[in-house]
């Protein structure tokens, strides 16, 4: 292949940043969580790219693990979100500000 690795890295960085911004501008807990997933995917892309760059598989293995982690996180996260929704009837994080100051 002839595409410079850096291109993929830039894309990954972009995705990561978009995810980051998403966490900050969205209010729906679910969407925020999705943005986090986007960040993770950005990182994964970087890992794979690096693995290609260094010519070893560690990056891919790490990506694999991060997917597992993501899966687990999603389970826990969604459980919490569901639970919160049951309790407060909303998934809007701005409404969750009892604890402050």
């Amino acid at each position, binding site marked *: 292949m002839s595409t410079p690795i850096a291109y993929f890295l830039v894309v990954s960085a972009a995705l990561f940043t978009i995810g980051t911004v998403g*966490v900050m501008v969205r209010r729906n807990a679910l969407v925020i969580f999705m943005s*986090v997933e986007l960040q993770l995917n950005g990182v994964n892309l970087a*890992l794979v790219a690096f693995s290609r*760059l260094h010519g070893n598989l560690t990056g891919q293995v790490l990506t694999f693990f991060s997917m597992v982690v993501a899966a687990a996180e999603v389970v826990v996260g969604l459980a919490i979100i569901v*639970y919160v929704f049951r309790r407060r009837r909303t998934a809007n994080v701005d409404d969750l500000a*009892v604890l402050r100051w």
Partner: protein
Amino acid sequence: MTPEVDLGPVMPELILVGAGIVALLVGVIARRAEPLLLLFIAMAGVAGAAAASVLLWDWEGGLTVLADAIATDRFAVVARLILLGVAALGLVLGHHYFQRSGELRTEFYALVLFATSGMTLITASADLITMFLALEILSLSLYVLTGSSARLGSVEGAMKYFLLGAFSSAFFLYGVAMAYGATGSTRLAEVATALGGRTGSMALALAAMVLLAIGFGFKVAAVPFHMWTPDVYQGAPTAVTAFMSAGTKVAAFAAFMRVFNVAFQPLGWDWTPVIWALAAVSMIVGSVLAIAQTDIKRMLAYSSIAHAGFVLTGMTAPGRTGMSASLFYLLAYALMIVGAFGVVMLVSSRGEAATSLGSYRGLYRQSPWLAGLFSLFLLSMAGIPPTAGFIAKVGVFGAAIDAGHWELALIGLLASVVAAFFYIRVMVLMYMHEPSGDHEPDASLAPRLALAIPAVGTLLLGVLPGLVTDFLSEASVIRW
């Protein structure tokens, strides 16, 4: 090539997980399982893990095992032991807490054990991948524990903790990726050699260093990655707060030190200023903001932020001095914060009934012993001799000044003057006012006996720090 499988160095984790699964099964199978039985199982697990770690003190095998995933050094041993101690106290307190609040879930014990296994594992990880996994294990367990009460605060805390936690672990992972990108490996030792030999890419390495610092900074609640702390500490069931405030910090700091003193050791000149800055702002912000708090748990949360700053101060000193100082501080901090939150739990008798500062009015009248314990812990936090806090403070600041960071030490000490203000404000309430509240503090004996341990520890380390300092400085070299 099939790597030799030597489980000895991970025996503590295996035992913890094993015990956790047993507790879980017992809880599931025997629905009417006697909580005490579960507690016993869990404690047995902790004890076993402790024993296993002690055995590791004189490990003859390689520096790292399991394909370089796990370090076998004494640093890990000491960190593990501190964490296991915290876990034991956390279990007892939690057992009591949830029984009283009637929210006892059999999963609690298992979760604490899993979280602990994550904490201990992270301290022993010699590989960023393992470290990341361990980090996630402990984080996920803590999210759940935080939300393990039906209270709104608890739920909201869990939510915030989770969202921000996931957010920060993304940064952490990115850091790992950058490190890998810079050196082509995630093994701390190899990263170090690559950077030391200038074969790695500095730019990426620096980025990796910063991103990992951010990830750890979040876990140890260093400003400006601290903002979850007050909310979560306040929201979580007090017993859980006690457990995680101590556990997370100790574990995260252990990993922090390992990564920065091994993998990024060649970048020492570059990361010391970062740590310096984090330390300074943490101490200042933590101390100042605590002044304005009206809820004891929030106040302690802010003080724990300040303490993170103190430990970071110790980290600015390179090598053994800094590390042993920081380790000692972590030990002292673990004792006093667990103790303090334990007292808070007892004072607010049932659930979170009374966590406002106001409910400490005239505590001395209601229960002199509780007041005495609390003042002991608070004084230790303020660094007044003869408590562990004093020795710890002298240690870290001494190390920092030794390394030429006397300005940082001065900032820290002035910050601790500010901090003293809100510590003594609580003591003013306890001693110099008459009881106003109608509520009585929880008078049950078991948790008090449990709290006697950190109390004695705080005093003992204040008077005879020599008991541990030798071990600590023994443990404060990370070979690779």
